[in-house]
């Protein structure tokens, strides 16, 4: 398996006056190419903190994060921005689409960060939007005029418009109803099947099932992990395996 991201002795401490909170403690993990990695854990275990440290959105307090040959943990904010632009895509729990821009502009604005050919970005956006079932009639709508599921699917297209090597999801279905959750997860699964590496934080077992690797975090430390095959719809055995693993973790 090709290693995409390597984390060594990662620590993250938040300070508030004299009070210090150690959220991540000497954490070591590797993220592999093509994997759909799920990070689970109870509230306050440090799931999101780990995700944002891995993605270069936040800087670690201690430790080393290496992406390929690049050690990103010492990068400045602007260098991290360039790193994210080049290698990462993000889907957040809230869609975080820019509510002052149309659907198409929300996608174009990300695409134009990497390439200048507007027509090519537009064509790719149209192709991706159609894959996530967003019709042409929605291109000029504003995020406020879309349903939650539609907006989240648009945010997925925004996140992959630059074909990132690694797609990060921070509970991307957390704010959606069950039907929209399935739709979004289907899109992500499809992307993974096409070779997209994904790291996703979730506390939902249905979402966790989609991954082929589940890391369980407790008190800032990964206490165990579960390896699975690629997701296939209707795989009952997979569900049982995930459930047992999580129960074992005390979830």
């Amino acid at each position, binding site marked *: 398996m090709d290693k995409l991201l390597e984390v060594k002795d990662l620590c993250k401490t938040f300070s508030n006056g004299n009070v210090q909170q150690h959220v991540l403690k000497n954490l070591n993990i590797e993220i592999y190419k093509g994997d759909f990695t799920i990070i689970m854990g109870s509230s306050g275990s440090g799931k999101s903190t780990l995700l944002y440290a891995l993605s270069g959105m936040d800087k670690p307090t201690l430790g080393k994060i290496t992406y390929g040959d690049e050690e990103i943990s010492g990068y400045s904010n602007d260098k991290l921005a360039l790193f994210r632009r080049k290698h990462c895509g993000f889907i957040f729990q809230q869609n975080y689409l*820019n509510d*002052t821009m149309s659907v198409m502009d929300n996608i174009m604005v990300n695409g134009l960060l990497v390439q200048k050919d507007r027509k090519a970005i537009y064509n790719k956006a149209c192709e991706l939007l159609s894959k996530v079932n967003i019709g042409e009639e929605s291109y000029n709508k504003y995020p406020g005029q879309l349903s939650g599921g539609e907006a989240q699917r648009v945010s997925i297209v925004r996140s992959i418009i630059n074909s990132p090597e690694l797609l990060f999801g921070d509970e991307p279905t957390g704010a959606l109803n069950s039907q929209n959750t399935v739709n979004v997860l289907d899109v992500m699964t499809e992307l993974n099947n096409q070779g997209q590496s994904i790291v996703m934080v979730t506390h939902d077992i249905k979402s966790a099932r989609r991954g082929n690797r589940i890391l369980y975090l407790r008190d800032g430390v990964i206490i165990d992990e579960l390896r699975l095959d690629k997701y296939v719809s209707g795989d009952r055995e997979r569900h049982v395996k995930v459930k047992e693993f999580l129960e074992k973790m005390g979830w």
Partner: protein
Amino acid sequence: MKTWLIAKSNMKKKKSNVVVLFLLIMIATILLYSSINIVKNVGSFLDDKNESVNGAHLDIITSKGFDKEISDIIKSIKQYDDYIKTDTLIPTADAKIDNTDIKGDDETMPVCLNVYDPEHKDRICNYKIIDEGKEWTEDSIILPYYLKTVKGYKTGENFEVTIDEQKEKFKIYGFIENVMISNPSTISVYECFIEKNRFDDIKDIDGLSLMDRFRVRLTDMNKSGDASDYFMSEINKNVDSEQFILYMEIFYNNMKTGASLFISILMAILAIFAVLIIAVALIVIRFSLNMYIESNLPNIGILESMGYTSSQLRMASVIEYVIITVVSIVAGLLTAFGISEKIAVIVSNSVGVKWESSIDAVVIVISAVAILSVVLLISLLTSAKIKKITPLDALRNGIHTHNFSKNHLPLLKSRLGVNSSIGIKSMLRQKRQSISIALIIALVVFSGVTVFTLYYNFVVEQDALINLVGLEKPDIMLKAKNNDNYGSIDFTKKCEKLREDKNVKYAMTYTVSSMIIKNKDKNMNIATEIYEKPDRVELDTLISGRVVKNDNEITISNLVAEKLGVKKGDTVIIESSKQEKSYVIVGITQRTSNLGISMVMSQEGAERVNSKIIPDTAYIYLKDASDIKGEIERIKKDMKDGDEISYTNFDEIYENILSSFTASLNILCVVFVIVTIVVISLIILLVIKMKIVREKRNMGVFKALGFTTMQIIWQNVMSFAPVISFGSLIGVIVGKMAVNKGCTMMLSLCGIAKANLSIPWFIIIGLFLATTVVAFVMCILVSTGVRKIEPYKMITEQ
């Protein structure tokens, strides 16, 4: 009490906005109070000043030997109260003054020398001496207060008066304030007082003429114009002698208006600045309130869910701004009282009389109520938004007021870079805010065009000012050195000879004669300007018709036309020395000097009504005026008439006449530059700060997506800089088109129908570029605040 607690907490939360508002309202209060105070009180101040020394209402200087006739006429004035007659020395030759303790301050200006006797002070014009010296000696001289304020002269310094190359040395003993002869822009003469024996010693020197001075008190100073008209008409009727010279006849109302005119215009401009700053403060309140509502929706929701009514929350916001405004007004008024001495210098420079500031309760109330009421109105209107917020809306952070109607500048079609496109999209989306900003900038820049145009025309080039003042400006003026020579020197012949000089562009004779102009039952006495060739006069004061070409033609100023009820093409009767002739009005002119009263005719025209009128002055216009002093020496040598004729460099006289304007305008320009930079900076600071608060999340997401801080700063710059540049462009364009009209409106007080100010392109382009650059730099500086936005926190905080 509850609302006060909320207001207090709000103020604590937005300290920077409170400071900005405090500063703006304080500056506006200082400007508004000071300007209204001066405009309101300058007239009564001058009246009080004049009355405190039992000042004259008519001041008349005539040749000797006519005191009986003159005093009879004075006593027959309806409003006559009292008069004194004194001797005075008037230079008939080139007169120079020089404070020898200050290098390079010598100037050419007529001086009127009078006797001062500390033991027997004059009954009328019993001046108080400012900075009085210790000992009154034969060397002592008392100077006008104007020379102390504008030139910085001090008691004890050495002072020299040069009459026709003969130097008289003095020591400055002190300064006096005379409202009637306060500064050279009202009347071009310095009134000085010397010791009696010294006066007697120098009275016979060449170039000085001993004359009678009549200072008259009236029972009603407001009727001084009528008294002057009566006096002049009686002189025309009763004094018919070639020996009679009326050197000066001025009346109180005329001189008072002249002295206070320019400071009133300056203060009007300051008041406009104050209004501008108040407008900016109101916009700050709007921004600040909107920002508070948007960024505090959950808190509003919580307070409403606890049972606070929207009216209580609204009242808390209103109280907050009322408190800030009241504190700022008090601070502004206290500062205005504190800096009143500095403001007094500006006023004293312009008026020529020591301005003593007083606290005016009416002006305090006017300024405070005006500012407070607009603040109250705007905060009530803006806070009305709170009424529409339900607790649920607020708690969900969810009032969506965004207009989805149009997607401006779709990124697919935009030819600009992605960051520029995002910036411009944001600018177009917030149309109302962009229009407000553009409007304020346009107003500020328009004021800038006005101030710099006035500065350019009044200080740098001065041609427009010369045309407005309405006094012809030759390069050299020739006059007889001694009044005894009056009539014996043929200036017409001199001019003929001068016209043959290779360096002389033109030369012509000039004189002033008092005449009565009549139309039906109306008549006016006017000091008529008589030129040998009125069509060669360089002054351009004509607003309609043409200049005088024939001997039966005259031009009159618009104020004269108005008073007599005549217009261009009408025929009027002119009377001089009891003789009458009819003349056609061929043109209407305008001027500020002599309160806008003017009549011009040709020498031939003057002789047509009174053959005894002969020219007493020659004007020389040089082909190259770069070395007037050198040319004077050369012409004097060629003409060989230096003994009987004085040659005056007119350029220097004019410079002194205009110096009171230039001193005040310099200060005004500095005030403008500071106000502009403060206003532009504050606007940018607020709108960008508000944008950062409003769009914090979007900016955080942009950062998460991979936008760098510089890219987001550029987006901000592009969302404001074009608006400011556009506002600036509108300001300069409107300024270019309307400044003349605006200035004419201000000058219409003294009969100016058109200002004819030249507005050079470098002012237009310079102001546009300067505003744009300041805006650009400020946008970048203020936008650096986005550095603090961390994408991770933005997302996790939601």
